[in-house]
């Protein structure tokens, strides 16, 4: 345990006196000899440090009573000292940095700690001041500063410095880099890639500040580091770890960042097929890049091109790429569903295309995703392992759920007809596409192995409304250094959700939601048409119940059909109706 904080007032008084004396003496050291210039500069530096660092610290300490030696209170004088104006802090930090960097002594570990302490002060500066500091330091001092950071981190990793200093050091340099990157992203990215092998800690610093770093730095830096790894079969494990951290930072940034990374042909090939990268991190990048990014209208076409390449590489995909691709399909089912009924045409040689509308340019683009035979092979690869199979199942379940709700909403919007069959037909149409999707997966998967994980996750996906689970998982993790776990949270939710289902439960349990939607479709007819009640044998149903059901239907119409509240309200409405025997009989006859 370290010594308690504290000071001896008498000794501090004496220290103050000696310091003033030292400053006074240094001020008298002079020489006109030009060869003494360097020595006098050193003298001025020391004098300046004593005036600007020592004396204010001692003065603040003398004014503070909380840390008198032997006093048991916690805290430190620094915290109690009044903060100088911000401009002064900038000057002091800049000056202190010049000095500290220039005087770095690799043989003095305690000096490294002092440098980290200085870095901590710098980290407290606002971004604008940090950007100015970059310019103030100049090339040489800046290079030395980054060297200080690398030296300190090397000392931490070798156990010569307290591991607790790592975050301080990385936060300071990370903020320093992020501040510069705001206006000079290319310069910073090139610097980081160029020093990735010699000073990989700079990448740690960037990741530590990833949330405040523009994606036009994160993406090229990550691409550059992945390029280094791709070019070297024996790339150091430490560098691969940094690439994983950067990929995690990309996944935690906007979906657009993941898509931008994957649009680079060489980077995409590495991310999709190089088994050295972390499985779940790759899954997160792929899921966000070709799944969530495609939800951005202007990005759908770009994402479709990436998806086409993923489909073509199906046989070479790593487990992470398969998992991410499977998760992303929740975005693509609505895009390709209507085409799936043609999957048997021409022996599978027909092209599956994604049709992309660009409202801004009022144009329509068809992006070929591959033949149906290639798509089948792709699906067969996705269901090779349980994780990807479960993710695929969840995507189908979520898509089915969405279609059910949209179908029910359509019935409510058009006020329905006095025809139970019409309502059922409308709902059946809404569900036809998901049925095609399920059939396509089952046909592709039947050649691989059974689809238990798919079917169970499909049930979970529908029951838990798991649309956009990757988004949820990403939002769940706010920070930089644990972002590599983004995907694992999402997949864990799915796996555990699937595991919680009782073994004996029919795997078609996701039809619970579909069932209530179909029941509502049936109920809407007598609810809106009194004459239909007689025709359907519902004369004895109390008026109060009809009023209650109508009120609930009105409330349902006000809810977002894609919200969980909609599902809850719909289920409650059907439960209420089922308490009446005649209505329960109707639902049994008219239900699915």
């Amino acid at each position: 345990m370290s010594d308690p904080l504290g000071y001896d007032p008498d000794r501090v008084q004496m220290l103050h006196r000696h310091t003033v004396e030292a400053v006074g003496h240094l001020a008298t050291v002079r020489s006109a000899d030009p060869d003494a210039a360097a020595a006098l500069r050193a003298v001025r530096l020391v004098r300046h440090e004593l005036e600007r660092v020592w004396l204010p610290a001692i003065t603040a300490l003398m004014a503070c009573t909380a840390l008198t030696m032997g006093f048991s209170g916690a805290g430190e004088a620094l915290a109690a000292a009044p903060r100088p104006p911000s401009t002064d802090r900038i000057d002091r930090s800049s000056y202190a940095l010049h000095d500290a960097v220039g005087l770095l002594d690799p043989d003095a570990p305690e000096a490294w700690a002092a440098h980290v302490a200085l870095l901590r002060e710098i980290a407290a500066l606002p971004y604008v001041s940090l950007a100015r500091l970059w310019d103030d330091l100049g090339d040489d001092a800046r290079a030395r500063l980054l060297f200080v950071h690398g030296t300190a981190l090397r000392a931490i990793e070798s156990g010569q410095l307290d591991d607790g200093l790592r975050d301080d050091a990385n936060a300071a340099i990370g903020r320093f880099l992020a501040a510069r990157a705001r206006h000079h992203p290319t310069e910073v990215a090139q610097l980081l890639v160029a020093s990735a092998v010699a000073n990989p800690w700079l990448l740690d610093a960037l990741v530590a500040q990833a949330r405040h770093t523009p994606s036009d730095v994160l993406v090229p830096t990550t691409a550059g580091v992945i390029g280094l790894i791709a070019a070297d079969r024996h790339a150091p494990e430490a560098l691969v770890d940094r690439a994983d951290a950067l990929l995690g930072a990309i996944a935690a940034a906007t979906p657009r960042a993941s898509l931008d990374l994957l649009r680079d042909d060489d980077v995409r090939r590495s991310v999709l097929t190089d088994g050295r990268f972390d499985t779940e991190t790759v899954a997160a990048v792929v899921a966000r890049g070709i799944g969530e990014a495609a939800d951005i209208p202007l990005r759908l076409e770009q994402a479709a091109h990436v998806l086409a390449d993923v489909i073509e590489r199906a046989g070479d995909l790593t487990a992470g790429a398969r998992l991410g691709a499977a998760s992303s399909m929740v975005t693509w089912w609505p895009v390709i569903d209507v085409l799936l009924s043609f999957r048997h045409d021409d022996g599978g040689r027909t092209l599956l295309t994604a049709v992309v509308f660009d409202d801004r340019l009022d144009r329509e683009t068809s992006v070929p995703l591959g033949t149906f035979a290639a798509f089948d092979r792709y699906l067969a690869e996705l269901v090779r392992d349980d994780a990807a199979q479960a993710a695929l199942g969840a995507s189908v379940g979520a898509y089915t759920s969405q279609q059910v709700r949209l179908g029910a909403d359509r019935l409510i919007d058009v006020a329905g007809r006095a025809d139970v069959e019409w309502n059922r037909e409308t709902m059946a149409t809404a569900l036809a596409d998901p049925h095609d999707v399920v059939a396509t997966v089952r046909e592709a998967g039947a050649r691989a192995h059974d689809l238990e994980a798919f079917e169970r996750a499909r049930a979970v996906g529908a029951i838990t409304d798991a649309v956009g689970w990757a988004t949820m998982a990403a939002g769940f993790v706010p920070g930089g250094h644990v972002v590599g776990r983004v995907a694992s949270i999402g997949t864990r939710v799915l796996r555990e959700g699937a595991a919680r289902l009782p073994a004996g439960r029919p795997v078609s349990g996701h039809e619970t939601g579909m069932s209530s939607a179909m029941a509502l479709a049936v109920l809407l007819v007598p609810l809106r048409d009194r004459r239909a009640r007689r025709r359907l044998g519902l004369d004895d149903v109390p008026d109060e119940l009809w009023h209650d059901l109508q009120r609930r239907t009105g409330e349902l119409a006000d809810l977002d059909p894609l919200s969980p509240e909609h599902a809850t309200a719909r289920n409650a409405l059907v439960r209420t109706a089922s308490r009446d025997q005649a209505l329960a009989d109707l639902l049994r006859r008219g239900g699915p």
Partner: protein
Amino acid sequence: MSTDAHHLRDRARALRALATEIERTPAMSLDRHAGPDTWRTPRADLCRAVLRTGQHQLHRAADELRWVAHRLELEAASVEAVR
């Protein structure tokens, strides 16, 4: 002895005196009054480290001055030898 050689030796003497003065400045012994028995805070650690590096730099500056002085004396001897 030439004026040039005399001037060079004067400069060497002055630089040696300056080196001595620098090494005897109270700042070089300030650390004796600033140990953990005086104050123990993170800022104190920082101040001590800054002082230590400053002292190293002053020592190096003094050594450099003596080296320059040595070169000046060699130069003076060279000038005298030529004559």
